[in-house]
């Protein structure tokens, strides 16, 4: 696995917009950005309404994922190139999700919508429809997904990487500062977690930093390469970005994303929480 296998440049993307077998997928929390302009031929995926179960707090199941991808016209053999807003947070989340259900060839567009827009590359409002497929997913690969009991057991034992902003880590904020701060859960972080904000893995234009810079970042933060790692944030999307950096770009083994993240952990009764001054 190397960077070229999992990350494509904006130049590559622009040259491959119409390439058969390559499907561009825009993933956002708010899909109105897609509706105002998207990469030519790209289909849209709504993080909240299409990837989350509408009732239980969990993902859509294997059958629902198969139905979703079939309806979007994505085949098992297609190369899926994901991109989105928010510095690719939700695109990275979808990347992890596609891997969870065993999609073979999936890539991220480096820099996502932001770099594309800052480069003044073309966007279109043209509607996209692709013929339906018969998509077959694999069972969830839980080697990349952490659940709460594993996270509690990992305190003091494994690398816990909290990728939220320093203020959220310290317990001064509950959420990223573009969201209102009301919340019912407790603020703080999981004891023994180190704070490496996701943004340290990205350049200002949303592209990932180089492998050397990323290696230095996590080494300096004190991640022990001999231990397994669990990354978390507030709802699991920013930690997908860091999971991508550690597992896909740097090739670290045994890295899991805790998608329950702080909105679950910070609401659990009786678990230890640390705050910083």
């Amino acid at each position, binding site marked *: 696995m190397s960077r070229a296998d999992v990350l494509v440049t904006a130049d590559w993307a622009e040259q491959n917009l119409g390439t058969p077998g390559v499907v561009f997928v825009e993933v956002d929390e708010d899909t109105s950005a897609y509706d105002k302009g998207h990469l030519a031929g790209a289909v849209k995926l709504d993080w909240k309404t299409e990837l989350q179960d509408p009732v239980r707090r969990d993902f859509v199941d294997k059958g629902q994922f198969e139905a979703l991808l079939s309806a979007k016209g994505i085949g098992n053999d297609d190369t899926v190139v994901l991109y989105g807003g928010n510095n690719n947070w939700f695109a990275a989340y979808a990347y992890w999700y596609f891997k969870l259900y065993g999609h073979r060839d999936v890539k991220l567009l480096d820099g996502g919508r932001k770099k594309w827009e*800052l480069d003044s590359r073309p966007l279109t409002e043209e509607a996209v429809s692709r013929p339906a497929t018969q998509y077959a997913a694999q069972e969830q690969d839980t080697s990349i997904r952490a659940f709460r009991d594993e996270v509690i057991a990992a305190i003091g034992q494994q690398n816990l990487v909290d990728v939220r902003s320093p*203020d959220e880590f310290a317990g001064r904020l509950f959420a990223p*500062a*573009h969201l209102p*701060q009301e919340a019912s859960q407790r603020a703080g972080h999981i004891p023994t977690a180190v704070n490496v904000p996701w943004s340290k893995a990205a350049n200002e234009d949303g592209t990932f930093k180089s492998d050397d810079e990323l290696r230095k970042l996590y080494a300096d933060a004190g991640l022990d390469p001999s231990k397994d790692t669990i990354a978390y944030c507030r709802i699991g999307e920013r930690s997908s970005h860091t999971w991508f950096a550690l597992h896909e770009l740097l090739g670290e083994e045994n890295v899991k994303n805790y998608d329950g993240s702080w909105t679950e952990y910070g609401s659990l009764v009786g678990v230890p929480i640390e705050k910083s001054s």
Partner: protein
Amino acid sequence: MCGAPAQEETLDRTLPASVDPATQAIIQGRVVRDGDPVAAAYVRLLDASGEFTAEVVSSATGVFRFFASPGSWTLRALAPGATGSVRIEAGLGFTETRLEIG
């Protein structure tokens, strides 16, 4: 966008009902280039150490808003071919600023 009358002092202060401005620092403003509002700029909120805290895309009239805690912040905007930054001190309630890029 020329001649758009709205300036910082006329920014909307309507908040969702669940948000109490007495408990948070609401930082808002407008991205401006050569006197005109800049839509769809990427506006980043950086903390006192320069660390990224949040990012929003400016509205059609160049407006952005963050919900933060009191303290020193830097706002930085990126648009095709132009960037700019401004440093602010924010207390509880509204803090408004103009963010020039060029």
